[in-house]
Structure formats: structure tokens, C-alpha cells
């Protein structure tokens, strides 16, 4: 029986990693809503986020905020590249949903292998954003990285909300989510929205990667587990609902950190995957019900 006084601490680490899953889950939703495509290369963005930030920081010696900005732009560009090179040609040929999934999964593997060749197989990590001793509140210890993760995630959600509500591009993307054909008849350039959604989704993944790497590590093969966690978050939240995905992510993060305490770290992926299967079998529409 684990010591119950650890519980709040475990919950905190669950929330932090859950925010990350949530951001990745939102990335899934953004592309899905704009195009109906489930991009299985989503994890590659997270991996690239950590890896590129590490390289920029250590080889170019740029300060962290600039390194992070450079990384996000670079990964967004990579997102557009995937859209142009892999997704667009299939989209134009009216490929089936399954072929699209397979192609994006293949893209994931290509990126993973490129990262292995370029950066090697050694895990890498980033420094904490704020190098101060953690804050103690009774039995609970709060690290500054935790505050960064939660703060940036919440900020991003507010910004995304404003983007979808107020900007022209955001409104156009929502229109696509609602009805692509009608959107296209109204003069919205649906294919540009596809590229934009990949850029946005990749940027979200990059932010997630940069935020989480200081607390663990990054390596060429972290993408798939992150993508699956993000997908689970999206499913739990009812696919296509960004806010639901974020809540789903936090739920998953909490479940996983509890599972680590109960069964050991080795089975945390099995726990996450089991959550996925249970949700798919019992409530495929998510906790809030399916979007649309």
C-alpha cells in the first residue's frame, strides 16, 4: 500500500503530463476538424520540439526563449511540409481514410529515423526554464517547470479560443469543421485551411515537446507514445472538441501517474492503452459525447 500522503504530489505530476497530452490531443482535433484526417504523425512534432530545442540551445548557444521560438517555427514548417509532401497528394487523389492513416504513420517513422540518424540514439534533455528551488506547500513540492507547463497550456487554450472566435482564419477553420463543402462554397480556401491546420497542430506539438522535455528526456522514439496519449486524450474528450481533449489529457495524466504508483513505471503505457480500449469499447463518443 503506497503512502497516501504522496497522493497530492502524484496528482500534480499527473496534471503536468496531462496538460502535455491535452496539447497533443488538441493538435489531433485541429487537423481532424479542418479535414477529417487523423494525423498519426502527431507524435513526431512533440519529438522534434524537444530535439530541435536541444540542438538550437546547445549548438547555436541561443538563449532558451529564442531557442523555443525558433523551434516552434521550425516544427510548424515541418508540419506544413508533411501536409504538402504526404497528405496533400493523397487528399487530391481522394485516398481512403485508412491509406491516410497509414501514410501519416509512415511519415512518423521516416521522421523518427531521420532524427536517429541526425541526432543519434542518446536521450537528451533541456534545462528547467526557471532555475530556482521548488516551492514547498506543506507536503507538496511544486517545481517551477510545473508552473510553466500549466501556465503555458492554459494561456494557449485561451489564445486558441480567441483565434477561433475572432480571427478570420480561425472562423474559416471552424466553418470547415462544421461543413467543408458549404465552407468551400462560401469562398473559404479549404486546402489552405488544411495547411494552416497542420502548421497550428505542429506548433502545439512543438510547444508540448519543449515544455515537457526538462522534466523527462527526449529521444528519437518518444513520438509514438506521446501521439497515442494525445489520441487517447482526444477520444476521451469526444473527438474533435479541443477543450474536451485537454480535459481528457488531464484525466489520462492522472490515471497514468496513479498507475505508476500502483503497478510501477513499466506498465504506465499499458495503463494508458487500456484506458483507450475501455473508452473505445464503452464510450466511443468520449465523456462529453461526440462532437458535431
Amino acid at each position, binding site marked *: 500500500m503506497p503512502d497516501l500522503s504522496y497522493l497530492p504530489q502524484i496528482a500534480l505530476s499527473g496534471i503536468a503530463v496531462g496538460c502535455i497530452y491535452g496539447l497533443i490531443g488538441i493538435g489531433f482535433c485541429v487537423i481532424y476538424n479542418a479535414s477529417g484526417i487523423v494525423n498519426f504523425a502527431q507524435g513526431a512534432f512533440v519529438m522534434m520540439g524537444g530535439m530541435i530545442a536541444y540542438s538550437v540551445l546547445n549548438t547555436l548557444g541561443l538563449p532558451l526563449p529564442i531557442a523555443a521560438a525558433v523551434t516552434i517555427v521550425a516544427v510548424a514548417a515541418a508540419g506544413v511540409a508533411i501536409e504538402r509532401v504526404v497528405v496533400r497528394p493523397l487528399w487530391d*487523389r481522394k485516398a481512403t481514410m485508412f491509406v491516410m492513416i*497509414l501514410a501519416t504513420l509512415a511519415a512518423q517513422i521516416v521522421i523518427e*529515423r531521420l532524427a536517429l540518424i541526425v541526432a543519434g540514439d542518446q536521450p537528451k534533455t533541456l534545462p528547467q526554464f526557471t532555475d530556482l528551488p521548488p516551492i514547498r506547500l506543506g507536503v507538496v513540492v511544486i517545481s517551477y517547470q510545473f508552473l510553466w507547463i500549466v501556465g503555458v497550456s492554459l494561456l494557449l487554450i485561451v489564445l486558441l479560443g480567441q483565434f477561433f472566435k475572432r480571427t478570420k482564419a480561425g472562423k474559416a477553420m471552424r466553418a470547415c469543421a462544421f461543413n467543408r463543402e458549404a465552407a468551400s462554397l462560401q469562398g473559404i480556401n479549404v486546402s489552405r485551411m488544411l495547411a494552416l491546420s497542420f502548421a497550428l497542430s505542429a506548433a502545439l506539438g512543438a510547444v508540448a515537446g519543449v515544455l515537457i522535455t526538462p522534466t523527462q528526456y527526449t529521444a528519437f522514439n518518444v513520438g509514438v507514445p506521446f501521439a497515442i496519449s494525445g489520441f487517447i486524450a482526444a477520444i476521451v474528450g469526444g473527438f474533435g472538441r479541443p477543450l474536451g481533449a485537454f480535459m481528457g489529457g488531464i484525466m489520462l495524466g492522472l490515471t497514468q501517474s496513479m498507475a505508476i504508483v500502483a503497478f510501477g513505471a513499466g506498465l504506465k503505457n*499499458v495503463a494508458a492503452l487500456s484506458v483507450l480500449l475501455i473508452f473505445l*469499447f464503452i464510450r466511443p463518443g468520449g465523456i462529453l459525447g461526440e462532437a458535431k
Partner: protein
Amino acid sequence: MTNLPAITSRDPLRRGFVALPWAVACGMLTYAFIAGGYFVTVMSFAMIYAVFVIGLNIFMGTAGQVSFGHNAFAALSGYTSAVLTATYYWEPIAAFAAGLALALLVALVVGWPTLRLKGHYLAMATLAIGLIVYEIATQWQSVTQGYMGISGISPLAFWGYEIVSERGKLFALVLIVLLASLAAARLRASRFGRALAAIAGSEDAARALGIDVAHYKLAAFLVSAAYAALAGSLFVHVVEFVSPEVFGLHMVVLAFTMLYVGGIGTLGGPILGAVIVSLLPEMFRGFKDYQDLFYGAGLIILLIYAPKGLAALSDLLPRKGRA
């Protein structure tokens, strides 16, 4: 039946196109027997994968379903064979029977809820099943010995007769592949196979004609799981070693590449794809790190530019006898 002859008698060019990849595959196998050595091992892998892909093709090509998780069944059967023969000294055939039974049992239990899903939900659920089995293989160290893997697995043997020579193994594998292919061909040409193909075409129409769609999907899932289980057991006996990586995501991507290179939904496609894709790393020897990179990139290019694969090469020619 006025223009029936025009359909059955195909022009020589067309026939040549159909025959070309087959000539390559047969040539490679023959060359392996003559040349021996490492090439025999390469072709043996190709044959094992061919068994896996033939099964996958029934579920995906014929029945039009999706599974990213058939590596789970290969792993279940492979590990059962490995543990029972290496630790408990079972006969390979008996160990395979146990592995097959386990794989089918798991396929039945997970298949029933999984196959009610559609689209990306089905894709993700099957992917999760494969990953769960992989994770368990890495974590359940008392049985699987984790990443270290299990060695000392008994070689391929049939009723007490061990096949030791590499050529002998390849010969046995070729026979198994031919049998597996024959079985797949018979299934496809039967009432059973037609029902699967009907489901791929239109589930509503199939149901309207009295086909119990859920029942047939599950049956197709089980059949393909049996093929995967056979491939998994064959692998561990031929290599005499197993580790989780053998049945990881890599296996899924490789199998899909083979399926698409050969031609999904065609009878000979799986064999063709397995042989040709297995040859690729030999051409890029010394680029071991680049293997998966090439598979992935190659798969993307295929999906975009030749989604029907080599077996459908003849489709590039103008077709006669169309109404």
C-alpha cells in the same frame, strides 16, 4: 456471351506484365537455393513474412477492414512457442498448437468489441492491442526475459524430424507459403470469401442480402490472426531467438509495405511483396540505420503513386472487355 472470348484471351504484352514480378520472385528463390549462404536466410524471412501478409490480406484486402495490431497475434504465438520449447522442452508442433490457441482466444475476446468500431477508431484500437502485447513482452521479464529475449528455442521440426540446414528450412517455408496461399485462394473463391468481399464493397447491401456482417468480420479477423500466429511461431523456430523488437511496430510497417508493394487484395501480392521488400535492404547493405527510413518513404510513395502495387501493374495498360 458475345464478347466473352475477348475477356478471357489476354494479349501477350499484358500477360508479360503480370508475369514479370513473378519471374523475379521465382528467380530469387531459385537463386537462393543454388547460391545458399546469407541469401537463404533473407528468403526465409521473406517467406515467414509472406505468411503474415497473406493473412493480413484476407482481413484487409478481401474484407476491407483495418488492423494495425496483427503483430500482437504473431507475438502471442511466437512467445508461447519460444517459452514452451526453450523452457519446458515441448515439441514445436505442440507448442505451436498452444500458441495458436492462445492467439485465437485473444483474437476472439478483443475482436468482438473491436470490430464494432469503424474508421480511425478501429485503426487506433488495433494499434493499441499490438502495443499492449509489445509492452507486456518487454515488462513481463520473468517469462519473456524482457529486452534480453529468449534464446535456445528448438529449431523447426515436424513430428520429431528437425530441419537443421538453412536450405531445408527455406524449402519447408516455401511449402508452407504455398499451402497458405492455396488456402487463401480457396477462401476467396468460396461463399465465405464472397461474403467478406461483399462486406468490403457495401456493408448495407451485404446485410440486405442476409449476410451477418459482424459474424463474418470476426471470422476474417480470426483467420488472419491464425496466419499471424503461424508466422510468429515459424519466426522463433527459424531464428531460434525472440525479443520484443521482433514483433514491434516495425513488423506492422514492414508488413504493410509488403502488402502495398505486392498489391493489396490480390492473390499473389503478399508473396511478391514479401520477396521484393525483403530484397531491398540487401541492395542497401551497410545502410542498416536507413532501412526503416526507406520502408517508410517507399510506402508513402507507393500509397500516392501506385496504390494497387505490383500485382496490378497490368492495370496500367488499357483494358479490354470492359462494358
